[in-house]
């Protein structure tokens, strides 16, 4: 068994055997999370995985079995993650949600986590249907997509990356469960990003939404996918060795010194331009393309702790003298309000 730099085998990042349907895209995403954490040599006990309700939200049982976990009420994962993050900023927060958990019941929680730029990775396992209740259209189902029972979805689908950009998200990406060469580096970059990182992953529901006419089937996604760039994640200590023609690559340095290396860029694409990202998403939608890759990143992102200037230490490490600094300090504070 090969080991990573801190001595863990890949199996140490795995969970129990999945009970999802055979061939579910979610299992591939779990596999990508395992792969990314193994390659980044993250200590499992430094990760907190959180989820809500749904097929997607079952998956934290299937990866990172040695990490902290919290399975919250339906749609409330962002709130629980906010609380946990506020209490202990030293952990790495990995939220997993589905299209129902995020775009319907949990929409109110989701948007506020984005606008506060909570330091977490938020993965949406997006299959456009309610798989756990036999495949009804979800809020992200595209208009005109045909369900397994033959009904055509009459409503506009919610585009999560577009909405996240609108709300000021600082890391926005889209990917496909069937493409680990793209998904794994995206997860690594997102875990290194300081602030809210959204990865919307097309994840076909093999049982209820993999039929002809569905816009979220394996075949449809493969036929309409359009990647903005090939992405590579370069850890802090390694050098970028492959060189490409200028203008075809962009390197984005993250706060921890690691680099997101984008090559073979689509016509001069710059992932640091929020407006261009929004325009590009709209254009792709008109063209009927599914745009994937790193859509937008703000390398100078300030996360919630920085904005509210909270203590740099986790709450559990604060002693009584930190929490009750005495009347002299209280007097100083009160003086401020005069």
């Amino acid at each position: 068994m090969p080991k990573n730099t801190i001595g863990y085998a890949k199996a140490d990042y795995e969970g129990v055997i999945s009970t999802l349907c055979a061939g579910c895209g979610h299992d591939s995403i779990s596999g990508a999370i395992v792969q990314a954490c193994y390659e980044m040599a993250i200590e499992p006990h430094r990760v907190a995985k959180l989820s809500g309700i749904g097929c997607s939200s079952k998956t934290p049982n299937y990866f990172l079995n040695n990490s902290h976990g919290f399975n919250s009420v339906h749609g409330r994962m962002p709130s629980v993650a906010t609380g946990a993050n506020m209490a202990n900023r030293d952990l790495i927060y990995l939220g997993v949600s589905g299209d129902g958990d995020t775009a319907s019941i949990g929409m109110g929680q989701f948007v506020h986590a984005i606008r506060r730029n909570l330091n977490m990775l938020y993965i949406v396992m997006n299959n456009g249907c309610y798989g756990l209740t036999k495949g009804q259209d979800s809020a992200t189902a595209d208009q005109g997509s045909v369900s397994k029972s033959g009904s055509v979805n009459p409503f506009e689908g919610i585009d999560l990356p577009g909405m996240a950009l609108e709300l000021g998200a600082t890391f926005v990406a889209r990917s496909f469960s069937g493409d680990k060469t793209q998904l794994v580096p995206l997860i690594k970059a997102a875990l290194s990003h300081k602030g809210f990182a959204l990865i919307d992953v097309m994840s076909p529901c093999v049982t209820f939404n993999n039929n002809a006419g569905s816009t979220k089937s394996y075949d449809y996604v493969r036929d309409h996918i359009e990647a903005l760039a090939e992405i590579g994640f370069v850890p802090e200590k390694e050098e970028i060795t492959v060189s490409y023609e200028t203008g075809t690559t962009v390197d984005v340095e993250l706060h921890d010194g690691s680099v997101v290396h984008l090559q073979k860029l689509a016509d001069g694409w710059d992932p640091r331009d929020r407006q261009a990202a929004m325009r590009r998403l709209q254009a792709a939608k008109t063209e009927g393309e599914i745009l994937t890759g790193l859509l937008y990143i703000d390398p100078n992102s300030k996360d919630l702790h920085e904005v509210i200037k909270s203590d740099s230490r986790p709450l559990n490490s604060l002693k009584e003298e930190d929490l009750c600094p005495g009347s002299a300090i209280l007097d100083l504070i009160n003086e401020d309000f005069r």
Partner: protein
Amino acid sequence: MLKNLRIADLSNHTSLKPTEIKNPEYFHKVVDCQYACPAHTPVPEYIRLIAAERYTEAYMVNWESNVFPGVLGRTCDRPCEPACRRGRVEEEPVAICRLKRVAADNKGDVKAFMPQGPFASNGKRIALIGGGPAALTVARDLAPLGYQIDLYDDQDRGGGMMRSQIPSFRLPENVLNEEVNFILDLGIHTHFKTRVDSLRGVLDKGYDAVFVGTGAPKGKDLADLPGRWDSSGNIHIGIEWLASVAFEHTQKIGKKVLVLGGGNTAMDCCRTSRRLGGEEVKVVVRSPRKEMKASPWEIEDALHEDIPIFENHVPKAFVTENGKLVGMTFEKVEPKYENSRRKLVPTGEPLVFFEADDVLIAIGQENSFPWIERDLGLEFNEWGLPALNETTFQSTVPNVFFGGDAALGPKNVITAVAQGHQAAVSIDLYCNQQSLTERPSPYTNLISQKMGIHEWIYDSDVTTDIRYKVPHADKSLTLKDRKKEVELGFSQDTGFKEAQRCLNCDVQTVFSESRCIECDACVDICPTTCITFTTNGEEEDLRTRLNAPANDTSQDLYVSDSLKTGRVMIKDENVCLHCGLCAERCPTSAWDMQKYLYSVTKAGNQCGILQELTT
């Protein structure tokens, strides 16, 4: 089409061709134990039968393939075990040989399953010269086809070297007798105590074909060593001495015994000596211990019986005082390796003297054909072995065939059996005026295994199961009685547990491109990361860029045809555990677990027993 996967331009590469799984040898090779077995016994098949307590059937699967399951379950050289896939998960392979014995010990009445005579005569007569494993195999394969079989042997019973060279404490006589008699009861005309002194004489009797299975009956000597002939009454040739013990001509040996040689015969000699009065028995070998030819478990058993082994000692002289052997001198050497060749270089230390009342020379054996006239047209090669076609075992006299140690030199029982089967096929083709080189193809079958919804909830843990030890009878008992069997064999319970260690490599992972939707479920679930979907390329390059590099080039890559995205599926056969998780995870049954049966076809296309039992 997946654009961001950048399908490589394949025009400049020689890509791997899709694996031809229709070729019977491809999946055969994946069943490592069966592939390694000279007789290609379907090992996983009979291990499953043992686990199901179907010992009779397990025995018959063996009997059809290797003819002597009870004998081989105790004495086989076990080429299957080093090949066993379990050895890649843990240190120790499945105890295949000892499981075979479990089948034999619990077989019950098997005669009803064997061919029932009398057989309608086909008018052809065959002579078998020698009554060992090779000749008996030919007899068993040909008798049911209506051949009249005349078997000649100078002993008074059948079995050949299995009787004369394998001591009773490893192979009880009743086990051997039973399995020899299964064959003789098929209506074989036996001519025991009949030494054949002339091949011409046999040919003159008008047989349609003659099979020579006379073994390698001549033990090597140290004829030129000083002192060899001064007290020759106490210096014995290993295999002759073992035969003499087996036929009860020899009852005892001196207290101090030296055994020269490092093969299994040497191990049998030293252990037999311990039972005939040898108190200080030593084994002395020329080469380093790790180069000894004896099976590791035989060496272990000898050490257990307080027999030390001295390595790197080259015999120099026999020492005799007053006409009585008192010992031997040896020169100490050390191995030096130059250009991958090993030389034994004297260390310069003074000669070593070991006391001895008797010396047993077990340094190898040779073929000997003084009874074959050299003007018959039967050619011999430079090693004194008959010139043979190694597939058909036909000699340069068209109706004379060879098998066993007499054919290609000394090997082992299972090789003799395998050669016997092939010689029988040749004799049958020859007697029917058919081409000997057009061999019948093996009987194969590939059967899909059911995977229902209940198999969805499974356990991916490949359990680490440590090999079970075979219990031994107490040393204080076995050393007193040379006929007391040392190994007691597995109980049914332990046999079941050991059988559960088998990974069922014959249940193959069969992949169909047309069904695959490339969802990656199999890649994620595989406990050994042996499945990769990638762009095709040259094998050398591909082996390095699989999810887990495939470094063992002796093991194949299973390559699919091109998939929808232009990629191919590649599975490294080396590390696949045949756990079936890929098939259970697959939403479209692109992976299917199919049981593969491969049986070497016997003379007259008989494969009835196996076919009946396993479909």
